């Protein structure tokens, strides 16, 4: 019978395989070994009193951004590590109240009706994850996770102009394994008698794994499980990086700077105090503000025609959501309806409330320095709503809020992978409104990329930074 004695590190093998360990001498040796381990570089012990809310001085992976994508990556990194405490993960979040985070301000929908197969697979994997969420994210002695998932499905309406696109998308979706059905106008009228089918030629309805859920519950489930597995959480802002530069010359004589991040400076809220966190890998999951984090590394600040001059094309775009109350509106079977004019709405609760929104045109984009709601914008949405659902002619706006999309101005799809010039910065951002529904799958893909060196279960190399350098957009045609 071998009883082994472990100090703070689980990795050091024990050389004393004695059974009788209760002698004084043994205790003294043990205390001496622990002190020696503490004094070695790489341990957390410092002789000075330090502020408890500062992050640790060293971390293996620093995730900038504590939204659902950031916490999903943190959870999957801990899930995939081969040995206990194999990687030290630190999640840095600027705002403990999550007042501007896109995660909690989103409408919370998940759908498989995309035009790119990668997006469809991401949604299907995420739906599978959410179905078995308690197997993945349950913590001992805590309540089981309840996402309040409404399985009402998405209903897309197409006019004559875009009906052929919808048919092509339907074929792609069925090929990828999504359960979608096409409805003609008569079938649509039979299914949803409250719809006015003027101008609608074709409709596409998701039968399974589509609907909406509570994003705050998902975020907290990831966070709770990740913290229980040992992820460090810090509320602070990453204000800069310290990096080393390796300058190399190309065959034509141009110089290229390869940078490697050594320290991430995390500044405490409302204070000038900051902690340089020595790290091996930095993951940029800052959502709408990822562009600013990328600029801290000089991405985009180089000469115009070089790779260093290509900025990260992610910027915040403000989107409004209005809560309306309509007593005679469609009932429990209301799907998440997306009209071809860009207007969408879904049921909220059981009391005749609905939430509605619309993506504005490029020229009418609201300014993004605050989250104030423009109530005049609803006057543009209402005619389309009333035209599509006659019961919405008499509705009342009870409330509204605004949130940011982490909008990828290049092709409105996520950017997942490394940057060619910064050797240890990974991106998981730019999802332009569907980051929440793809977060479990993206988290797993990023963890595989970081820990295994490549994508294993789902190949997201189509979303790498390379397409931005070669200027080949992967356009998603079904953006809401």
């Amino acid at each position, binding site marked *: *019978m*071998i*009883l*082994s*004695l*472990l100090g*703070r590190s*689980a990795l050091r*093998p*024990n050389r004393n*395989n004695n059974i009788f*360990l*209760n002698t004084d001498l043994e205790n003294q040796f043990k205390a001496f070994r622990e002190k020696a381990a503490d004094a070695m570089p790489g341990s*957390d012990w410092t002789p000075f009193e330090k502020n408890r809310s500062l992050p640790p001085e060293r971390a293996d992976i620093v995730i900038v951004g504590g939204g659902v994508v950031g916490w999903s990556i943190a959870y999957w990194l801990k899930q995939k590590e081969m040995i*206990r405490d194999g990687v030290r993960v630190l999640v840095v979040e600027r705002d403990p109240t999550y007042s501007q985070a896109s995660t909690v301000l989103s409408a919370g929908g998940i759908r498989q009706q995309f035009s790119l197969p990668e997006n469809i697979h991401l949604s299907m994997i995420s739906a599978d994850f959410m*179905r078995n969420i308690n*197997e993945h994210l349950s913590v*001992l*002695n*805590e*309540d089981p996770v309840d996402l*309040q*998932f*409404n*399985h*009402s*499905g998405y209903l897309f309406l197409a006019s004559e102009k875009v009906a052929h696109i919808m048919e092509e998308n339907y074929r792609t979706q069925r090929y990828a394994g999504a*359960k979608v059905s096409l409805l003609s106008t008569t079938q649509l009228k039979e*299914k949803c008698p409250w719809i006015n089918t003027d101008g609608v030629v074709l409709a596409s309805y998701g*039968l*399974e*794994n589509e*609907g909406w859920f509570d994003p705050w519950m998902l975020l*907290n489930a990831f*966070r*709770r499980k990740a*913290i*229980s597995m*040992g992820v*460090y959480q810090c509320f602070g802002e990453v204000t800069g990086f310290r990096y080393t530069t390796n300058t190399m010359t190309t065959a034509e004589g141009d110089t290229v700077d390869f940078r490697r991040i050594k320290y991430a400076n995390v500044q405490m809220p409302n204070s000038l105090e900051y902690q340089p966190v020595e790290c091996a890998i930095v993951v940029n999951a800052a959502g709408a503000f990822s562009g600013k984090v990328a600029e801290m590394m000089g991405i985009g600040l180089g000469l115009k025609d070089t790779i260093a001059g290509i900025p990260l094309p992610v910027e915040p775009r403000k989107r409004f959501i209005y809560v309306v109350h309509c007593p005679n509106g469609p*009932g*429990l*079977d209301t799907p998440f309806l997306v009209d071809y004019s860009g207007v969408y709405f879904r049921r909220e609760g*059981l009391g005749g409330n609905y939430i509605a929104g619309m993506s504005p045109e490029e020229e009418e984009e609201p300014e993004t320095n605050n989250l104030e709601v423009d109530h005049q914008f609803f006057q543009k949405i209402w005619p389309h709503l009333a035209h599509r659902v006659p019961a919405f002619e008499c509705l009342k706006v009870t409330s509204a809020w605004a949130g940011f999309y982490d909008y990828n101005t290049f092709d409105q799809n996520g950017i997942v992978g490394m940057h060619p010039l910064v050797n240890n910065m990974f991106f998981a951002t730019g999802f332009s409104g569907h980051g929440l529904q793809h977060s479990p799958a993206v988290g797993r893909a990023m963890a595989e990329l970081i820990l295994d060196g490549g994508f294993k279960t789902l190949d997201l190399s189509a979303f790498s930074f390379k397409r931005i350098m070669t200027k080949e957009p992967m356009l998603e045609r079904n953006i809401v």
Partner: protein
Amino acid sequence: MASRFPILCICLSPFSLSMFCVSVCQLMQRSCRQVTLLAAPSRYWSSIPVAPPSLQPRLLLFLSQRFHDIETILSWSSWFKNRGLRQKNFFYGYTQQNYGDNIAAAYYILSLKGGFRFAGQSEWFRSDRRGKFNWDFMNHRDTSIEEVDVSNTLINYTGLENLVKQRGLCTLSVSGCAEVDDWFLSRLHIFQDTLEELDISNCPRISVGGLAALQKLRGLRRLDVSSLPRLQNPGLVAILLEEMLPHCHVTAIGYDHSLIYSHTQTDG
């Protein structure tokens, strides 16, 4: 590695009680920092005040926060429980290949201790309490199943894979099944043309989100949603279901519709 021996091996050894105490102290102890990290989150997540759990779960939680061994044993025990559920619901691919879809579905239902009735026949095939059943159903390879009663069994979403080929299903009863949840209901759209009677009473995991998925069952004539513990507004939900499925008769008994009086003072 030798460092991963569980506490049980130590208990089973013929050492005296004092030696047991010594060995307990020398298990893989977790560093104090991790303990505070684990204890802190549990305070913030529950917004509903709950009664403190009884002694045994608290003791297990205390031990699992301090010793890796206990944590591993607890995760093994939950893995075993899941394994039992998975084994009940695995895909009867071999049976399907060799005997056809109908026999595979029939075998699956009988091994779950449920009952079914073939189309065109009037007697039910059931398995008794000990799991024994009559093998006569093997004679009907080409008849599809019309009525299925798997109440109080462990059927779940993955188990439904065995029944997807039964396109002539008219009646399904999953009353009292602990593993039937909203995702199971969302998958029932496979039977949307033929399903006429559905009984989902007493299922502890079903909530309004899953009931919204029943809109696809256009052929449904009788729906039983009695005694669903997770429904907060059963009367309203029953009315909304009747509106959603106009040709369907909805039964919703077993709920307490009395008004709850609160002790708040109102001014004026």
